[in-house]
């Protein structure tokens, strides 16, 4: 029961749902499994903690991150590089588009509609039930509706990303799985996969879950914390 995503995959969700951590870790896992991966940072609404901060780590692994030119990297105003449209026209085996948070962050996708409409595209909603606004099924459905309206595009699957960062426990992972399972059911969509922090993989009962697992080594950390190593997160559990 592994994660076998290919083609163009867009990650959307409310602010802080963990789209970027999912994108980075999914890119690394897919790359290690031999898939050619490219990631685009489409976050035009968040000033810190974006995919661009992991550019070096990803580049070292041979994963291309498509970003605005260096001189605009910390601009106040949103920059959408024309290279994005190019990478959608000629996608890698797996092309990950990491959109910004909420409906405002997903608005950029509507601007790319002319290129995205020519391709088969999956759009996954990342849900962390321990965040405000997605702590109820109604909240998840409302966010979905707002994102679909803003992006002019339908969400095709759900990703569970239950965590409290450094205070995550096994219970949070189990409870989170049950919650996103219900959210997926209420949405009428598949639960594509859930995340589990890489250091929990050994201690958690994998048979509990009804979907594939993405081990996550946290990358977007404040300066007093070291990013986690990907070493233990490359093996898909059960695969």
């Amino acid at each position, binding site marked *: 029961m592994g994660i076998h995503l290919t083609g163009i995959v867009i990650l959307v969700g409310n*602010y*802080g749902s963990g789209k970027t951590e999912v994108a980075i870790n999914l890119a690394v896992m897919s790359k290690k499994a031999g898939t050619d991966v490219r990631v685009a940072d489409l976050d035009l609404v*968040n*000033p*810190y*903690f974006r995919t661009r901060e992991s550019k070096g780590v990803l580049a070292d692994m041979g994963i291309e991150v498509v970003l605005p030119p260096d001189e605009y990297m*910390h601009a*106040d105003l949103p920059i959408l590089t024309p290279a994005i449209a190019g990478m959608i026209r000629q996608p890698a085996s797996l092309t990950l588009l990491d959109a910004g948070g909420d409906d*405002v962050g997903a608005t950029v996708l509507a601007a790319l509609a002319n290129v995205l409409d020519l391709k088969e595209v999956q759009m996954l909603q990342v849900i*962390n039930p*321990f*965040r*405000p*606004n997605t*702590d109820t099924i109604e909240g998840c459905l409302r966010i979905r509706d707002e994102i679909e309206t803003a992006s002019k595009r339908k969400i095709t699957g759900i990703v569970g990303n239950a*965590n*409290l*960062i*450094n*205070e995550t426990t096994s219970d949070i992972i189990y409870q989170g799985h049950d919650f996103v399972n219900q959210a997926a059911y209420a949405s009428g969509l598949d639960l594509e996969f859930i995340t589990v922090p890489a250091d929990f993989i050994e201690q958690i009962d994998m048979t509990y879950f009804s979907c594939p697992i993405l081990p996550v080594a946290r990358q977007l950390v*404040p*300066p*007093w914390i070291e990013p986690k190593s990907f070493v233990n997160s490359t093996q898909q559990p059960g695969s």
Partner: protein
Amino acid sequence: MGKILMKGNEAIGEAAIRAGCLNYFAYPITPQSEVAEYLARRMPEVNGVFLQGESEVAVGYMIFGASACGERVFTTSSSPGVSLMSEAISYIAGAQCPAVFVNIIRGGPGLGGILPSQADYFQATKGGGHGDYRLLVMAPASVQEAVEMVMKAFPLAEKYRNPVMILGDGLIGQMMEPVEFPEDLRTEPSNKDEWATNGMSTRGDDKQNLVKSLYLDPTALNDHNLLLKSKYDQMKKEEVLYEPVNMDTDYKALIVSYGTMSRVCKSAVAMLKEEGIEVGMIRPQTLFPFPEKAIADAAEKSSCKIILSIEMSMGQMVEDVERCVKGKLPVSWYGKCGGDVPSPEEIMDVVKERI
């Protein structure tokens, strides 16, 4: 309610509501715009008001007006926005009105940049606006502490009838951490009937309350300034907050650092300890009043050879640290102020080099 994961800016917005503040006026600016975004959604759910002003100058006076009428009110902004509000802040302090200002600092001067910085230390602690006034300034080092400080800020503002400022660097606003909210203060009564222009009929008394900062008579203005000074002296006696780290050792150096910079320093202190190098740290939680006595006492330690003020500003806090140390030990500065936050390893190297 259990813990939830919140961005500092969201948590600050929620904390204000839980402190009973249902009036939020603001003008968006990176890196604090998420407060407005959060409260635009949240305020209507609690019958509160979020109103975007036409500029920060307007917002400053909207705060003054609402506060003068006895409403709990707050705003959030970032450096250049706070500069624009500074005139109103001086009027609010002069007129003795309570209000809470949150500054999620960006790099400066001028437009600077949007990355983390602590370059508004002087602005917050030494004025910003004109006249003999002070702000009570608190600097959180975590999202949880930001929640607690915001919730504490409203009762303190009312106790002293003076603006309180929460000074956070961009990381405090942008990072996500698990938080829980202390007991809800929404039903706590305010002392507004004693001073606010909320209408004699509302209060059921015949005392006219007058809110003003104009005192043309020289004796009256001097008396007014003496009264303000007595409040600031009382803050120095009663409101000092700081966190000591590794202070029960024979530390060779003392670090003074606040906000998220102090978390980097705390990591460095722990890593140096593993190498057998003891370093003490004092983290001011209030910047005004400054933990003068704690730093003065720490400088008396015979094992301590040097004091380091480590900040994301160009040595602004050094002046306050030197004031406390009174020349007994050398006070040295280290910091960065462009947006890159120094790493724990960098701080370790600085300490090793200077002890």
